[in-house]
């Protein structure tokens, strides 16, 4: 999409994934591209069904094929193509180079295994150390993620821990082999706000210490604002806008992004005033529309939008938008009230 010749840590190009079901082919991801550099955080934002998680899992080769099918695209990690690797070869990468934090910590951990054994499994496999050594590393990891009394937690089963504690264990497991990319799929969605704040801080602190790159998949724009360096907004299996956090939040250029930002109540808006809302629902990915996928819900829809899919237009350096409105032939439009003029919260002391 906007990759330079210079090598990135991770480069995904034109990724398309479909699922073959009895009802037909679901085109879950339809040409997604992004890149990731060392030590940065890329947030992938979108609503349910927009293909965020499927793209992530495809990058890690975690999808069951079939029913999933890679239609096109490439995933290059440090210049090496990942999509053609066998499961056996991928094992060298998963857990060591890439690791993942899942949304639901109860299903992400094995309920029949003690925390310690689960943690050691990866360490022993990837670092080729003795069990005693692995145990030491594991307890160190548990300490690092801020769990009180790690030696006791080491011997416990997942169900005896709280949601926040389990999420910390997952993070400990994910970072135990010093991965260069951490995939976090809605890591705090299941948690309460105070716990969410703690986990986000932990992730930021660990990133500072280890320099891990993070791909954060989420629908919560508050979380994105506090974590992301760059943002890709997904809709109906495509990235419709990408740029730095500042570009996307302060200068959004795709009507869908306007809608997402406008739909959040802001702290100085009149109470009970109508929220800006996007009408309708996302399209059916069994039969995606011919033109722009967002056209049917877009209040700025042009004739061209229904006929042909727009390409990526460059808004400014590193900021692209997949929208016909950016074309020079399109007339100037004003985004809805309150999106550009979104009040910035004054930093308090």
């Amino acid at each position, binding site marked *: 999409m906007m990759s330079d010749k210079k090598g990135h840590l991770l480069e995904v190009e034109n990724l398309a994934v479909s699922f073959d079901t009895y009802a037909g082919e679901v085109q879950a991801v339809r040409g997604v591209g992004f890149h990731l550099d060392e030590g940065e955080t890329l947030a992938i934002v979108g609503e*349910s069904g927009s293909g965020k998680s499927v793209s992530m899992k495809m990058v890690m080769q975690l999808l069951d094929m079939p029913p999933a099918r890679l239609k096109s695209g490439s995933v290059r990690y440090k210049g090496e193509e990942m999509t053609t690797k066998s499961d056996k070869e991928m094992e060298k990468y998963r857990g060591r180079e890439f690791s993942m934090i899942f949304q639901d910590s109860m299903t992400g951990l094995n309920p029949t295994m003690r925390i310690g054994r689960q943690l050691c499994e990866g360490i022993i496999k990837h670092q080729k150390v003795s069990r005693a050594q692995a145990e030491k590393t594991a307890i160190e990891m548990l300490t690092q993620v801020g769990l009180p009394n790690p030696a006791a937690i080491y011997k416990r089963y997942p169900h005896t821990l709280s949601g926040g504690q389990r999420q910390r264990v997952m993070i400990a497991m994910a970072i135990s082999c010093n991965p260069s990319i951490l995939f976090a799929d809605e890591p705090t969605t299941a948690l309460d706000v105070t716990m969410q704040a703690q986990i986000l801080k932990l992730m930021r602190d660990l990133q500072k210490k280890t320099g891990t790159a993070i791909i954060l998949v989420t629908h919560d724009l*508050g979380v994105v*604002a506090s974590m992301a360096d760059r943002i890709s907004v997904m809709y109906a299996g495509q990235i419709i806008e990408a740029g730095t956090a500042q570009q996307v*939040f302060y200068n959004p250029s795709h009507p869908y992004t306007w809608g997402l930002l406008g739909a959040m109540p802001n702290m100085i808006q009149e*109470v009970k005033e109508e929220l800006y809302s996007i009408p309708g629902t996302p399209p059916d990915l069994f039969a995606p529309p011919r033109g722009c996928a967002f056209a049917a819900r877009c209040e700025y829809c042009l004739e061209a939008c229904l006929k042909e899919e727009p390409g990526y237009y460059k808004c400014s350096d590193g900021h692209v938008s997949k929208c016909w409105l950016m074309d020079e032939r399109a007339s100037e439009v004003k985004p809805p009230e309150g999106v550009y003029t979104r009040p910035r919260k004054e*930093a308090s002391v």
Partner: protein
Amino acid sequence: MSGQPLIQVNHLKKYFKAGPKAVLKAVDDISFSIEKGETLGMVGESGCGKTTVGRTLLQLYEPDAGEILFKGKNIAGCSRKEKKQLTREMQMIFQDPYASLSGFKTVGDIIGEGLDIHKIYRKREERQDRIYELLEMVGLHREHYNRFPHEFSGGQRQRIGIARALALNPEFIVCDEAISALDVSIQAQVMNMLIKFQKEMDLTYLFISHDLSMVRHISDKIAVMYLGTMVEYGDMEEVYNHPAHPYTQGLLEAVPIADPDYERSNPHHIMAGEVPSPINPKPGCRFCGRCQRATDICSQEMPPLTEVAKGHLAACHHLK
């Protein structure tokens, strides 16, 4: 009616047995009132008793102590017959739009169930017309009458849930995390609809949610719950702008703001620890273990709700 709140709750308690000697104090002595046409927003983390309050108000749970005055009449522990009458005036919108609609019934029958139970309409056509009207009110179509819930998306199902709650023209609706399971753009649609209906029909809401910005948007008053107790209560603007209780302050601080520059320049003061178990809670202030202001008295005595400003109550021994 003037001067009398629609709902007045006094010293409500609801305990659950959690074992031979374990008592889960889900709601422990809380009092509040809601005026007609107003929204009380109830916030707090999971396990703080928000949902139990909502369900107890609707008599889905029998309270262990305290009274619930609805239009001045105590409805706590009323008979089955009275409960049935109450369903005409109080309804609920549930969190999970997948679990709260029966998969065996058509949308028309789900919405019409209340109408049938209370025998509102004699003629089939009248009943059908009312259901059509409700479907259109919530932005669905007549054609949806004979469909089943599984044919709808989450947002549409929540609309069906709202139509069902409105069918009997209730005065009071408990919205229990009514928008939590929905996507951002759909949340805004549903919120706008709830606010519109409130204005048109003079509805009174108890809006239970953990999403502080949405609660701020719809509420007139807010109540902050922590582990079965109410730690702060007052006018929404007042509580948001001048939170008095350390828990409320921490909770508001923890919400990430969708503004990257702000988030970067203003690191959050993060509240440490997590919510303890509500089973056999220790005496004293429930928040004591996580509180920076805590002193000896906090672990011995439960602080009473005291007025910090007009109509703004907070329960803390160390109010500044």
